[in-house]
């Protein structure tokens, strides 16, 4: 008898001091209260003995991860493991990825709660019932984070902003800058197909997690279909206690622009005046941008025909570009290529695989020391190397994966099995130089 179906994740939120459940989200059936209570109980019991329980792993890839934020909110993520059972002896390899995924999830959920409600309300919990009610407004974002259904959005995992490289970046950049300035703000960005196409400089200077979350928020807001909205946000690292207004306007279906501003301007004034002034002349540019589509790369960048999927991260600016292609020239008789959804999944898994074992992340600077300590624990394996890993590759039965890291970039590729293994390196280095040459990255 199993309560969690395969592959599904449940998220539990409780108060850290008293263990009162605040909410439970997840696709499958909710866990019974006794289980929730035990999960919280073991953590609190350990805490009483000065032992912090951080994670737990079961056969078949099941995982439980505990995390307490600001000593006031406890988040627990329970994952039911994969279909069938790939893990067995030494199965930690498979679910190490799962653990990283869940850790990320908890961080994101907490940040999202702070984003929506502000840190004050979460840390000084006076009225539990009111908090429960307020938390309902986070649910859409949290569900988005949990289900992770959106293909092509890896930012939650990588904590790098998913970007799209437009064919004519300078025009768009000017427009965004001007627009933000006209709205009495320094933070503005243009989101096309859920990815950032252009943004002001200050926007990029926000903590990567904030950028990712704001993008997620934008996606959920634009999914609601409204033409514009005014949403109060707290920046989890930038200003957790002081709210800003997020003004969002839909320019074209699939293209939205937003600014983070103070009390002025009002939504109506901005919508009627400023938006039109800056964006109407650029309709064609925007359409070109939309035409880039899922590829996220301008037509000037040509990819080699044997690249199945790629994820390129700029470590300095914390931006990433990712895409999955359908290869047309795949010869018949060869083993079939994995499906698009599977490619995204493999890309994510390979990313986690490489970064947990070989490629250290230089995390954002504004991570609190406590969080850094906890995150550092999952990277203990990397520290065991006396020499620095530069590249790695995997050959599985579905495809070949290649990952490389330079001081500026990280590139992860999926390549069909027909490509010989010794050629993988050339493919990777060439792809990297092709994309890096493109403007704007």
């Amino acid at each position, binding site marked *: 008898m199993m309560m969690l179906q*395969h592959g599904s994740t449940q998220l539990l939120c409780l108060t850290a001091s008293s263990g009162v459940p605040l909410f439970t989200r997840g696709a499958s059936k909710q866990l019974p209260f006794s289980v929730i209570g035990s999960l919280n109980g073991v953590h609190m019991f350990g805490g009483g003995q000065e032992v912090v329980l951080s994670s737990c792993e079961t*056969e078949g890839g099941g995982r439980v991860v505990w995390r307490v934020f600001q000593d006031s909110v406890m988040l627990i993520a329970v994952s039911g493991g994969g279909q069938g059972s790939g893990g067995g*002896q030494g199965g*930690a390899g498979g679910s190490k990825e799962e653990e990283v995924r869940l850790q990320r999830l908890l961080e994101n959920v907490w940040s999202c709660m702070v984003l929506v409600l502000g840190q004050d309300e979460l840390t000084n919990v006076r009225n539990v019932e009111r908090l429960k009610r307020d938390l309902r407004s986070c649910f859409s974002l949290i569900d988005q984070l949990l289900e992770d259904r959106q293909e092509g959005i890896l930012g939650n995992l990588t904590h790098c902003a998913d970007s799209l490289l437009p064919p004519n970046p300078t025009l768009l950049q000017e427009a965004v800058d001007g627009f933000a300035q006209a709205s009495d703000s320094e933070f503005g960005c243009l989101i096309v197909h859920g990815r950032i196409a252009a943004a002001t400089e200050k926007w990029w200077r926000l903590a990567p997690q904030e950028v990712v979350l704001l993008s997620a928020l934008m996606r959920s807001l634009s999914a609601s279909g409204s033409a514009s909205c005014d949403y109060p946000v707290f920046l989890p690292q930038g200003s957790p206690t002081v709210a800003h207004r997020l003004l969002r306007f839909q320019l074209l279906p699939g293209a939205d622009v937003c600014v983070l501003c103070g009390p002025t301007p009002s939504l109506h004034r901005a919508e009627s005046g400023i938006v039109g002034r800056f964006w109407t002349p650029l309709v064609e540019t925007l359409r070109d941008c939309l035409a880039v589509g899922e590829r996220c790369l301008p037509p000037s960048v040509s990819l080699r025909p044997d690249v199945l999927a790629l994820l390129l991260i700029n470590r300095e600016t914390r931006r990433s570009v990712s895409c999955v292609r359908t290869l047309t020239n795949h010869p018949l008789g060869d083993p079939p290529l994995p499906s698009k959804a599977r490619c995204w999944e493999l890309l994510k898994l390979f990313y986690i695989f490489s970064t947990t074992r070989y490629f250290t992340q230089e995390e954002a600077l504004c991570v609190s020391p406590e969080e850094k300590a906890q995150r550092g624990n999952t990277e203990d394996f990397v520290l065991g190397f006396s020499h620095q890993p530069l590249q790695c590759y995997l050959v*599985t039965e579905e495809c070949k994966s290649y990952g490389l890291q330079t001081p500026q970039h990280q590139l992860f590729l999926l390549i069909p099995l027909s490509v010989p293994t010794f050629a993988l390196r050339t493919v990777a280095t060439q792809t990297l130089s092709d994309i890096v040459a493109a403007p704007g990255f």
Partner: protein
Amino acid sequence: MAFANARKCTGKTLSTEGNGAGEHDNDSFCESTSSFNSSDYSDDLEPEWLDDIQKNGELFYLELSEGEEEAALAQAAANRGVATNHVRFSEKEAEIITEQNKKQRCSSRTKGEPTLKRLARILRRKRRPSQRRGGGKDGGKENSNLSSPPASILKNQPGQRQGVTVQQQQLKEVCVYLNPKRLGGSSTPLSGGLLEALLGVVHRPSWSRGQGAPAEVTQEERLSVHGLIPNSPAIKCGQILIGDVLVAVDDVDVTSENIERVLSCIPGPTQVRLMLETEALVGSSSVGNTSSVRKTKGSPPVSQLVRLLWGEDTAELQMSIGHIPHIVMYLSLKLDSASPQDEEEILYQYPASEASGQLKGVRGIFLTLCDMLENVTGGRILSSSLLLGKQLVHVGYWKESNNLVVIGLPAERVPLLYLQMVVGDVVRTLKVMYGSLDSAFCKADHAPRLDHFFCLFFQQLIQPSRLRDGSSAPTPDVSGTLFLDGLPAVRWLTLPPEIKMEVDTVLSDFESSDFGEMSEDFFGLRRLYVILGSCLFYKSYLIANHLPKEDLLDVCLYCQHYCLLPLASEQRVGQLVIWREVFPQQRASSSSSSTAPGYSQPQGRHFLLIVGLRHFMQCVLLEAGGCASPALGSPGPDCVYVDQVKATLLQLEVLEAGIEERLNAPPAPCLSCADWFLPAAAARDRLVSAASSSPVFSKLAGAVKGSSTGYRGRSLFGEKARRSSPQRSLSDSGSEGQMDAGAGQTSLAPGLSPHSTPESGRRLVGRRDSLTSGGSDGSGGSGGLFKIPRRKHPNPFHLGTLKKTLTERETEEMYNTMKLTSGAENTLFHYVLMETVQGIFIAPTNREVAQLSGSIHPQLIRNFHHCCLSIRAAFQQSLPARGRRAADRPQGGGWGLGPVKEHGVLFQCKPENWTDHRKPAPTMTYWVIGRMLLEPVPQEFYVCFHDSVAEVPVEMAFRLSFGLAL
């Protein structure tokens, strides 16, 4: 007769009085046996290990060869100066269950033992209460004595008298190693009696009292040391000074009258505690000697490991890791809730120190999670991670019926990737040793042995360097041990066919159980044991195996746990005899469910006999029941079988020279050292100027670089590339020259000047030629020309550019070696090839690796092992679960990364201590690749090579296994 005695101890009665241990010369086998017998079965009727057999029939007897044991005990004496709480002198009953060496022969025997022995034992027992009294005092005095090893025997030196304030009488304890056997055949007592002969102390009865004849012995005179005999234990220990008075021996007061009697009670080689009274000089240099001085005195070859196996120092070792959290617990999940007592659910726990206190306190977490998570996520719990203060601890679980084994280990020692493997291995070892976890943990009398077992386990994992303390082994590579021990395979040494055939023949002879006059059949007995198979280790390599794979792995797990393999390689083991009942996993599991028609395993009991002599070690698996007579009770080792194994080992000793030759042979396949691929620092500057001014070399450089990617050239050509683009030449993208690291090259440089002419350049080339020609003359040390000491085996594939006459094939044949990598140079650094059918793996021997010493190379090897941990985990995660749980086949690659066939990582390394800040440090890149091969034989292949030519691991694996004919 010895033989009769031996048979008696197994509880069998003899129907005929066998004269088997006589002098029959039927065949060489018996001859060696009989000669062996006659030497050993002399007046001392029993083998030395007979006393160490414990109540349940188990035996763990380790005796180092003579010189080493003395050193061991000397060191033990030295260390005892510090007042630590040694638990070994406990107040327990004589039946001490922990494994001890014969010098603490405290196990009581029901056999009729000679009265001498009993007296000796009583003497020894008396030692205990006064242990504390003596040990605490004069620790400093002992230290001071130790710090001046060439002991100034004449303690009353005039020089020391100045500044002395007080002279006091002080008692000191000295431990001396006495070996009555060394008295030899001619045991005519010297004039000094045993005091002189055995101990080496000269005592002259007082002359001064009157002018009576020397024969007039006064009553009860104090034994003052008047002299010391050279090369005696008294002089060797360095603490007995002339003028000291011998007060007591093993806490038996001695005087001149009873000293002889007391000394004659000493039965065998043992350590004796002497109490001496001495005059101390206060104010002398007796203070300030730290234990570090003590440790550096001499270099005792005996390591901490041996002492731990003997059961000593456990408390000290435990305390040294007391700050690192670690624990093992056996918890019961079913509680009798009617009367819950405190800690009732803990069936076993180790260690009982503050290291485990916190973890023990939170055992509720483990129990709860184990109970609850199975229903929640659908799988049994495997591990948890906890933060204790600042330290991350990984806890592994193993649930069996209603009980749970919990093992907590620090994360920095055992990465989570490998925790499951470690836990699985421990559980399997325990099952092999005790049959089931319940029987291991739940019997009360197993507790001390389990304590020792887990002490070894934690020491090996947490501070392995401490165990190597005092021995000559290099610092252990933690990842390496984790990786190699975790492989389901044993390290194999390939031997030349002639030697292999002989080894196999000798083993087969033994396994045929044809003992001639020593066999049970001769005495009309039913055969006692069936020999199921045996395997033979030389140093730490497996050289012959006649056991089925699963049994081999079981035996190997046991040997690994007790560190028997490094023991044989480092120490010269005088004698090692181990006997215990084992429960091999593949035989145990089939015993319950044998309802299938046809053959089924016989219901029997299995025993493991391990005998080690010097560097050889043979493990034999015996079966009682089935064909042989059933074993009743807890039988101890049968002397005849032990002797037969010893005889086999003695026979094999003639092959030792051949095996050593194999170990000293140049490595096949050829290995390169990582430092050779790193450009050297100093020499480069001078060579740059040489290259730049010599047109000859630019032409050559051009020609060479055209053919291959330039690494075939020497440093000069590397500099050539440097001239074109300074940045790129320093990074290793194939334009590296072949350079010897560091010092080796500087001898080239003096010959060059900045304005070198082509002649000098040619001279340089000529020199290089002579290097290679020197190399081709023999595989001896040809590097003398360039003072490259490490080049004992010049790599024949490091050819100078001008010596292109030999093709690869010819080179291979000439040097009887093989090149595994493609490309012109040999770029192979290291490899491990594991063959899963036979359960063996091959890797470069330790000696080969040591010969390639460099500064980067050991680091590279460590890195290689660490990476292999990750690669292997990637392979494991995708395979269907074999081993402990029921196999759940992965369904169609829908989860996880899918089955991984090949995984490789590219590393970059730089030399440490790069002092030249003007230029960036040179780098070298290399690959570590792991490949799973399923045909023709399931294999796992891990290889490390320099990143110059792309390699195909499948080809390399094929070449390797083909060339070595595994």
